[in-house]
């Protein structure tokens, strides 16, 4: 039994993990950096520990500090969330050495599967197809050029240690290899602390299909169905759904079985995701993500299961809550990620203060949010602000529900893809399910918010005009309309690293 859980993360995933833990009667400890003193995850937690300055390597990525916080505050378990230290075997080991439960896979399985090269070899051994191409870790520029020519362009350079599009580069010409390799290495190093990369054949227009798997320490392994994550920009998922319109029941079974074979072979435990590329009816193993995924809520909504509760149960040594044939799938779920980024300028990060926030409530709509009004979005971490997840009895209804939810999601002060995603969901090819990982590049590369005309433009300018007129009289010293004028003028009070 876990009684006190330290969540070694921030933002929406830390909030989400703590909500489930608290429902189960588990006390929660938050950690936070300077930039996150007033963050939502700090407020939700029963206790909160300041662990350092804003840059991640001085706080959320610092294993010693995280372990020390867990010990000093009497945690008996640590949940790593996603990103940061979640797929770092050293961290998993350090937690265990400190006598605490790590809510995730054992270091060995994590090491094996986290290494894309080893995991591809494992897949081949267990008769799971992999993308055509050669593997090449820690390549020199010369080796990379040589191997790329063998595989044939385009090739993909990826971080061996991570996922999420970080450290990933498509290379279409030999002369671009050097620079892309260097950039991929730097990003991989910064994101995962490991600059190992590898090369593979780049498949055009595949679908990204992944299976949620779960293993306990008693030898039980199940999958909780697939998620289609083909809607990506910058090789990073932005809209996910479950089930996938592309899978027949037979193909689903075949891929689900393959997913289970791999994690079983790896001696895996807890929640994991087996990613595939799907090219028509052919699928290729991509990698295993040895953590809870950002997009896990779509699986939760179609199965009705709480994956964090499953994680905590399995980590505590319990059996999987359900057997494969007890897991039921109902309706359709979609997730839209609300990133702090600007879809009109290549999805560059956007920061600032959230001047106004109104996250709509509606039946069938779940919002996993890590922000609130007045929060200053830091430049140091992942740009995910929140996730909107909609469930309905079928895909068409789920799409409509999502369009409504995005429409009424009011967030001012930081640029987000809320308008962009509304247009993606409204695209006729999306409605038909004719999607691939290049869908956005094909249909939305030159997207911009349509400027209103006629009465709508007049309405927009009326608001701006009148707002200015009054604002000139009343706006505060810093020029910002914060919800409470009285307090704003106090200046920027800051809490001195206070604990518990």
């Amino acid at each position, binding site marked *: 039994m876990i009684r006190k859980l330290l969540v070694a993360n921030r933002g929406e995933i830390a909030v989400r993990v703590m909500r489930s833990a608290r429902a189960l009667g588990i006390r929660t400890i938050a950690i936070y950096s300077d930039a996150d003193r007033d963050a939502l995850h700090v407020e939700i937690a029963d206790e909160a520990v300041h662990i350092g300055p804003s840059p991640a390597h001085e706080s959320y990525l610092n294993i010693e500090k995280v372990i020390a916080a867990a010990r000093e505050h009497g945690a008996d378990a640590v949940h790593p969330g996603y990103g940061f230290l979640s797929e770092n075997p050293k961290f998993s080991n350090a937690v265990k050495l400190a006598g605490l439960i790590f809510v995730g896979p054992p270091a060995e399985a994590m090491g094996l599967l986290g290494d894309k090269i080893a995991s591809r070899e494992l897949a081949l051994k267990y008769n799971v197809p992999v993308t055509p191409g050669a593997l090449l870790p820690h390549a020199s520029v010369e080796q990379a050029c040589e191997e790329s020519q063998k595989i044939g362009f385009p090739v993909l350079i990826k971080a061996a240690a991570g996922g999420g599009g970080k450290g990933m580069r498509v290379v279409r010409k030999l002369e671009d290899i050097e620079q892309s390799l260097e*950039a991929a290495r730097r990003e991989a190093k910064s994101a995962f602390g490991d600059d190992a990369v590898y090369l593979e054949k780049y498949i055009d227009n595949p679908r990204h299909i992944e299976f949620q798997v779960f293993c306990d320490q008693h030898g039980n392994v199940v999958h909780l169905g697939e998620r289609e994550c083909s809607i990506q920009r910058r090789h990073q998922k932005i809209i996910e759904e479950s089930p996938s319109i592309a899978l027949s029941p037979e193909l689903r079974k075949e891929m689900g079985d393959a997913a289970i074979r791999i994690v079983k072979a790896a001696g895996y435990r807890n929640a994991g995701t087996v990613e595939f590329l799907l090219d028509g009816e052919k699928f290729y193993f991509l990698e295993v993500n040895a953590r809870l995924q950002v997009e896990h809520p779509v699986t939760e909504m179609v199965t009705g299961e709480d994956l964090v509760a499953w994680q905590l149960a399995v980590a505590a040594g319990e059996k999987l809550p359900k057997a494969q044939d007890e897991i039921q799938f109902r309706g359709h779920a979609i997730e839209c990620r609300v990133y702090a980024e600007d879809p009109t300028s290549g999805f*560059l990060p956007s920061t600032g203060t959230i001047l*106004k926030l109104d996250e709509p409530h509606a039946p069938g709509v779940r919002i996993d949010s890590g922000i609130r009004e007045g929060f200053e979005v830091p430049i140091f971490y992942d740009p995910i602000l929140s996730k909107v997840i909609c469930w309905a009895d079928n895909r068409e209804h789920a799409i409509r529900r999502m369009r409504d939810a995005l429409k009424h999601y009011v967030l001012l002060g930081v640029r987000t893809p809320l308008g962009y995603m509304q247009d993606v969901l409204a695209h006729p090819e999306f409605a038909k399910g004719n999607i691939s990982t290049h869908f956005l590049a094909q249909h939305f590369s030159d997207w911009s918010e349509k400027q209103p005309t006629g009465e709508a433009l007049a309405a*927009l*300018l*009326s608001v*701006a005009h009148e707002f200015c007129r009054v604002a000139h009289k009343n706006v505060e010293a810093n020029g910002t309309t914060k919800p409470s004028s009285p307090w704003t003028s106090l200046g920027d009070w800051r809490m001195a690293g206070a604990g518990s």
Partner: protein
Amino acid sequence: MKRHFLYGENLHSVTFQRRSPSDVEIIVGEDKTLFSVSQNCQRINLASLDKRFRAVMARSKDKIYVWLDGRVHELVEIEETNNVASLHSNPDDIRAPMPGIIIKLNVKQGDTVNKDQIVAVLEAMKMEHNLRAPRAGVVGAVDVKISQTVSADALLVHLEKA
């Protein structure tokens, strides 16, 4: 009173008049529109004869943010219309397209650069962004250091006049 707003590439000059406690008339160019208006905190509802508009607004420094029926628009108020030119970017400047940290700086004052050469690399939220020279030229001034945090639109490198 007339006000001027830069909205995307367009400059709009707007006159606004209260006709009654609940009605306003807005003149944009030649077009007049009459709205009945109600407001509630940062929310404002406008209605013309046959359409309703719902808006939420906020402001930070010179930027006005307006959520209008599901979409967000950013406008900038311009005091004098002849100031607009100065808002457009100078082709001799290399500016930060996003807030971030300078993680690589490839040039120093006096260096010669080719068009599209990468002069610096900016990182924010785990994403790298290459900053390239907009034209060939000589580096005039470098206003940043490695590891420095910069805000969006900050001047990083200045090229000498061609």
